[in-house]
């Protein structure tokens, strides 16, 4: 049996253009370029680490789990919202610089860090928790079909990639945004929940689901593959019906 040759992982030099902003010295953000030697298996997050650890310790960005679960490192990479920890450098065009910016629509605090409070506030405003009329005396059973109804929207990690890709949100910070609607959807269509009407009323707001222009930016941006625009459309339909 022929021993299969395992190809060596290629390494290459890549240029990162990072949108940097230091509130103590800068009045405007600026582009700064860094050259780093990277491996074929490296992700954009590894490149950011390498810059921070070896070239410029002042580079500031968020990351926690670094494996696509915590949702801390959503950023705009080559004009698209992605998680830095899930974007392999070899999948990008490495013949040109890779542009890394903070997500749009939220105030930049430093470098790639934005103020997430308005985003979380919209999330809180849709009551993202189970509200039941019955006492929790025993396990709340649910059929697989009922569970499947909202399965897609349980995947959200609140990284804000969708909300900060939404052109409506960019200009109207009061809009609830795709992420908040996705998390409302997760409970509106949950058979164990009794407060769908409350959430539908909240989202039937001037700044609620009707602001959505169906541009599908959110669906494209979601690193978890949630069909965000579809979820928003389902909430619109539920509001028109008056029930989930």
């Amino acid at each position: 049996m022929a021993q299969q040759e395992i190809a060596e992982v290629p390494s290459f030099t890549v240029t990162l253009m990072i949108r940097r902003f230091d509130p103590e010295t800068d009045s405007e953000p600026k582009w700064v370029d860094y050259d780093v030697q990277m491996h074929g298996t490296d992700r954009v997050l590894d490149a950011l680490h390498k810059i921070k650890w070896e070239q410029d310790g002042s580079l500031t960005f968020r990351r926690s789990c670094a494996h696509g679960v915590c949702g801390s490192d959503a950023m705009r990479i080559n004009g698209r919202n992605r998680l830095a920890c899930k974007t392999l450098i070899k999948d990008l065009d490495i013949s040109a610089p890779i542009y890394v910016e903070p997500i749009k629509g939220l105030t930049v605090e430093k470098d790639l860090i934005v103020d997430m409070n308005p985003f979380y506030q919209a999330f809180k405003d849709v009551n993202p928790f189970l509200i039941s009329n019955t006492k929790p005396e025993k396990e709340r059973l649910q059929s697989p079909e009922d569970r499947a109804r909202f399965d897609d929207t349980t995947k959200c990690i609140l990284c804000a990639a969708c909300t900060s890709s939404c052109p409506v949100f960019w200009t109207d910070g009061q809009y609830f945004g795709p992420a908040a609607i996705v998390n409302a959807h997760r409970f509106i269509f949950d058979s164990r929940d009794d407060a769908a009407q409350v959430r539908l009323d909240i989202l039937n707001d001037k700044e609620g689901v009707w602001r959505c222009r169906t541009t599908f930016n959110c669906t494209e941006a979601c690193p978890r593959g949630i069909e965000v625009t579809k979820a928003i459309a389902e909430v619109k339909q539920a509001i028109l019906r008056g029930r989930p």
Partner: protein
Amino acid sequence: MSVVIETPQAPRSRKAANWEKYGWLFMRVSGPLLVVLIFTHLVVNLVLGDGIKAIDFAFVGGKWADPFWQWWDLAMLWLALIHGTNGMRTIVNDYVEKPKVRKALITTLWAVAGVLILLGTLVIFTFDPCPANGAAELLPSFCPAR
């Protein structure tokens, strides 16, 4: 030592009723209707019969003497202007941040749409297909002067 934690964001203002739902619904209903209305209008005016060469005063006068086409054009006028103005209002809401400018633009939009709807409606229902001093050969065939 006490630490004051500022409220991260003022609570969202809640208004009981709003027209956004009905606005959205209107766009969804009027859109398909307009497709039918406008394309039928184009085919009848530009394709059927003598095609584009058929259009003259008599052609338009003849159509507006018929209640069917009067109501057809009325529906087209109202739906298209409200649909278009509401679309423009949406864009203004999306991209104009200063409340005063926003209000001024939206008021202007609806005022212009209102005037156009009023004028159009007036023309459709008060149009005289047989003006007394019109050249006889240009008038529709049912005019007594012809």
